[in-house]
């Protein structure tokens, strides 16, 4: 009892909250009793993401509050005075004794002395709570935002004073509230502190495109009201009049140092509570952290340095000697939907420094690197429009570049183009600047057993704030040689092959039994589809009955392909690409009647796009009645067997490629596998069906068929390899049967046949021994399993249509089955319906580039 000391924290913002968490996690012995006295009525929330409030985030979602019984949190109870002699702070409600006092009072918005900004006269009223004129707001707290939102109702235009970071955030907020939005900035460019002139120009184009009107190089001289009290507008320094219904002042912040000043603590020259490198004030019992603190005289208006200060004081209070490491003032932001990043010496103020710049008006990308005079050391930079390179670049500041400058600056597409540079980073480089985590700390955490990104996040906090360093975490894991566990996911410690054997040998028929006996939890989007596929391969019947329904990915669940807008596409099977005129007409009629976008696929089929879930059964009904069945375009299953016209029509064809393709496609239709499977049959060596880019490809010879295995198109194209030559049709079918079944049983999740063969000890030779010479004694079993599949095949569309219970799930809304999803709308392109893009984002896929740095 006598050992306990009293710690009082003034302020519960982001930094105050981080300090309390840091102290509590270090103070295992419970030496400190913690009281937090806060002015706001909300517990700590994420002020950095404050603007998300206008995008639909609730106050709860922004909350950083961590319930902790060991902390006495008193909201709405601001400290009004510090009595240093008696070591007590006073609030409106009483007094609190302290042994240590931490000031985390943050800052307040600065309102420049503009005529008419206040109700009462005078810029003298400047302070934390100035009495602003109705219609004039600051942008700092949740309460400010609520007030702005309420006032904006029914009003039409708003103006923001200040074109910096906060000003652009406020402008976006006004835009989201539906106001015509202006930004008034005194400097000749937007975000003058962070970006240079060219970056500011690029930013301006983005901002104007969004309908926000910038007024640059002018000051606001007066705010005027109408006789009825409503705001009228602003007078600008160039004499212009800017009518507006609402004004947000976002012209900077000032430290909240009045408590310290009244208590006689030393202040910084430009304000803020002066502290040393250990964040201690001129009173050894009192500390200051965050925006209210002036470390060695300098105030920092960013959260990362505040977090660093919080850690320093927490360490000192438990007997440590940590000191402020210096601030990383880098920033990466999404302002008005534009990615902007600046880091290090962004303005190139270091004597003799060199600039490398890259401007692409077409993609709206601007980038600049600032290098030392010998071009060897990265000093800083600015990125606008594409910030993929930011994590690697920021971490490299002060050290060598992780690659050639132009390769670093040019857009990398998937954001990893520059990432391999992590191996070249020095250990002290900060990989996560939000939380001040260095490469050395991450490497240490990996050595101590963090084997994945969630583990690293939990251990080090890296990647938990803005998330921009997560790609680097992944690369660090891989270059650290973390041997990847074969565990499928957190629910199963087994590989897919092991699960297959467990399910087969123990005759398990449900996921529930499997996870109860061999796993943990309730599964996920990784293990459930795997188990669904295994159960289907083992002949469990209709894939959507009973519990199996809950295992299926949305495509398998709806027997169609989900597309970007939530609609589905339907692909009827057209074996071998051969189709009668009658069937072609039916497809055309269905597409016309349901207004579906129609396209010939790469696999000689016809894809019908834009069907809503409740339309799917009606579409299938028409197709099934005309003799079509499901093409399994949605499944990890055999898709299509493409063919040329073969000996039937072609001058060169030596075998009936169409007949074989149709026979094989019907034989293997519906076969579930670790990955989709494609195939083709060419009628002669001219290879018009492109069989050698398929999982199994067949090319006719004068004497029979050549079989090629392990090819694919897709992300990493591969040619198939010749497995056997001059096969009879019977031999060919036998080997393909065994190949497919062996692959299904032993491949990893999502492992294509090429990678499967490559990973096999002995490769294609081994495969030949297993499938042709029966070296493992498996062939009889593989043959029998495939025969079971062929015998049990049933069309899933037809099965669904015949069962009202199964049909029930094809509704847009369970309580309004006849109401189509109102979010789905179409535009017309080249005479056909396509998804209306609206606010939906395009899907970006990583594509290979030639700019990679050797890894």
């Amino acid at each position, binding site marked *: 009892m006598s050992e306990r000391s009293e710690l009082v924290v003034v302020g519960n913002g982001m930094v105050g909250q981080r300090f309390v968490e840091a102290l509590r996690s270090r103070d295992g012995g419970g030496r400190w009793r913690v009281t937090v006295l806060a002015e706001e009525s909300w517990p700590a929330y994420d002020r950095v993401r404050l603007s998300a409030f206008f995008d639909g985030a609730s106050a709860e979602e922004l909350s950083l509050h961590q319930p902790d019984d060991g902390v006495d949190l008193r909201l709405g109870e601001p400290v009004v005075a510090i009595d240093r002699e008696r070591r007590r702070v006073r609030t409106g409600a009483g007094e609190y004794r302290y042994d240590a006092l931490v000031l985390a009072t943050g800052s307040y918005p600065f309102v420049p002395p503009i005529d008419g900004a206040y109700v009462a006269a005078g810029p003298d009223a400047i302070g934390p709570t100035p009495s602003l004129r109705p219609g004039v707001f600051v942008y700092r707290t949740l309460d400010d935002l609520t007030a702005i939102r309420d006032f904006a109702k029914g009003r039409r235009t708003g103006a923001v004073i200040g074109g910096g970071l906060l000003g652009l955030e406020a402008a976006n907020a006004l835009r989201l509230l539906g106001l015509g939005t202006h930004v008034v900035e005194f400097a000749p460019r937007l975000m003058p502190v962070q970006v240079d002139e060219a970056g500011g120009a690029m930013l301006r184009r983005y901002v104007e495109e969004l309908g926000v009107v910038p007024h640059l190089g002018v000051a606001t001289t007066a705010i005027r009201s109408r006789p009825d009290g409503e705001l009228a507008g602003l007078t600008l320094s160039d004499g212009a009049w800017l009518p507006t219904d609402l004004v947000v002042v976002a012209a900077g912040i000032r430290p909240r140092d009045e408590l310290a000043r009244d208590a006689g603590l030393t202040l910084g020259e430009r304000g803020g509570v002066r502290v040393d490198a250990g964040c201690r004030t001129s009173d050894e019992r009192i500390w200051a952290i965050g925006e209210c603190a002036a470390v060695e005289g300098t105030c920092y208006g960013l959260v990362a340095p505040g977090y660093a200060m919080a850690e320093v004081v927490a360490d000192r209070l438990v007997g440590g000697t940590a000191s402020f490491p210096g601030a990383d003032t880098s920033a990466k932001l999404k302002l008005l939907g534009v990615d902007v990043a600046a880091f290090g010496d962004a303005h190139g103020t270091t004597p003799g420094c060199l600039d490398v710049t890259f401007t692409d008006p077409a993609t709206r990308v601007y980038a600049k690197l600032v290098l030392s005079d010998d071009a060897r050391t990265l000093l800083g930079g600015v990125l606008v429009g594409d910030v993929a390179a930011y994590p690697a670049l920021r971490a490299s500041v002060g050290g060598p570049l992780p690659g050639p400058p132009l390769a670093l600056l040019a857009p990398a597409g998937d954001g990893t183009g520059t990432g391999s540079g992590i191996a070249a980073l020095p250990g002290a480089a900060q990989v996560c600047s939000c939380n001040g985590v260095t490469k050395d700390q991450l490497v240490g955490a990996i050595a101590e057993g963090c084997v994945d990104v969630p583990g690293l996040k939990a251990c080090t906090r890296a990647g938990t704030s803005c998330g921009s360093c997560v790609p680097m975490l992944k690369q660090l894991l891989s270059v650290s040689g973390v041997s990847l566990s074969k565990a499928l996911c957190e629910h199963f410690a087994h590989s897919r092959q092991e699960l297959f054997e467990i399910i087969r040998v123990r005759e398990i028929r449900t996921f529930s039994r499997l996870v109860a006996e061999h796993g943990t939890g309730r599964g996920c*989007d990784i293990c459930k589809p795997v188990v669904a596929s295994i159960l289907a391969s083992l002949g469990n019947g209709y894939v959507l009955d009973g519990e199996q329904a809950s295992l299926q990915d949305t495509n398998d669940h709806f027997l169609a392909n989900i597309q970007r807008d939530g609609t589905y596409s339907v692909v009827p099977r057209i074996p071998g690409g051969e189709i009668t005129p009658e069937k072609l007409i039916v497809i055309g009629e269905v597409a016309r009647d349901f207004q579906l976008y129609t396209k010939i696929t790469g696999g000689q089929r016809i894809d019908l796009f834009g069907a809503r879930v409740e339309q799917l059964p009606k579409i299938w009904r028409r197709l099934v009645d005309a003799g079509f069945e499901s093409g399994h375009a949605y499944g990890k299953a055999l898709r299509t067997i493409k063919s040329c016209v073969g000996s039937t029509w072609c001058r060169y064809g030596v075998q009936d490629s169409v007949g074989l393709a149709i026979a094989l496609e019907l034989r293997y239709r519906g076969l579930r596998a670790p990955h989709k499977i494609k195939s083709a049959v060419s009628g002669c060596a001219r290879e018009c069906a492109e069989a050698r880019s398929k999982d199994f490809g067949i090319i006719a010879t004068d004497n029979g068929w050549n079989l090629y295995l392990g090819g694919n198109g897709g992300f990493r194209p591969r040619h198939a390899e010749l497995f056997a030559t001059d096969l009879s049709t019977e031999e060919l079918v036998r080997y393909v049967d065994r190949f497919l079944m062996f692959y299904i049983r032993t491949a990893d999740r999502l492992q294509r046949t090429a990678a499967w063969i490559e990973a096999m000890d002995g490769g294609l030779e081994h495969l030949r021994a297993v499938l042709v010479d029966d070296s493992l004694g498996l062939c009889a079993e593989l043959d029998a399993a495939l025969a079971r599949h062929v015998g049990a095949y049933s069309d899933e569309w037809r099965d669904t249509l015949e069962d009202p219970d199964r049909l029930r799930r094809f509704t847009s809304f369970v309580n309004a089955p006849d109401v189509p999803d109102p979010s789905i709308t179409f535009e017309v392109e080249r005479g056909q319906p396509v998804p209306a893009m609206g606010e939906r984002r395009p899907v970006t896929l990583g594509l290979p580039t030639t700019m990679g740095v050797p890894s």
Partner: protein
Amino acid sequence: MNDDVRWTTVCAYPRLEPERGVAALVDGEQVAVFRTYDGRLFAIGQQDPISRAFVMARGIVGSRGEAPTVASPLHKQVYDLRTGHCLDVPGVAVPVYRVRCRDGLVEVAPRPQPAAGDS
């Protein structure tokens, strides 16, 4: 307080398949309602905040640690059904709705209005 809440009946409880979602309209908003393995009910916004498509009810339900989860069917980000927080992308979340089973019927309450931009 409870008197202010207008509960919308969505469907009979047995209509919900375990570990599978359904979409419902609640006061004009699209809501995804789930029944987990242990019979608990959850309701979140139907819109995937990343793709913006209204598809969440069609995701795979499961667990991550203690959290009951659903994965967006479009790009597989995983969300905690209890809080709506995305467990894969910091700062992303879907709204959470109150849901209950009364007299065998599943009912959902609209979100309290002050949470977002009223329109």
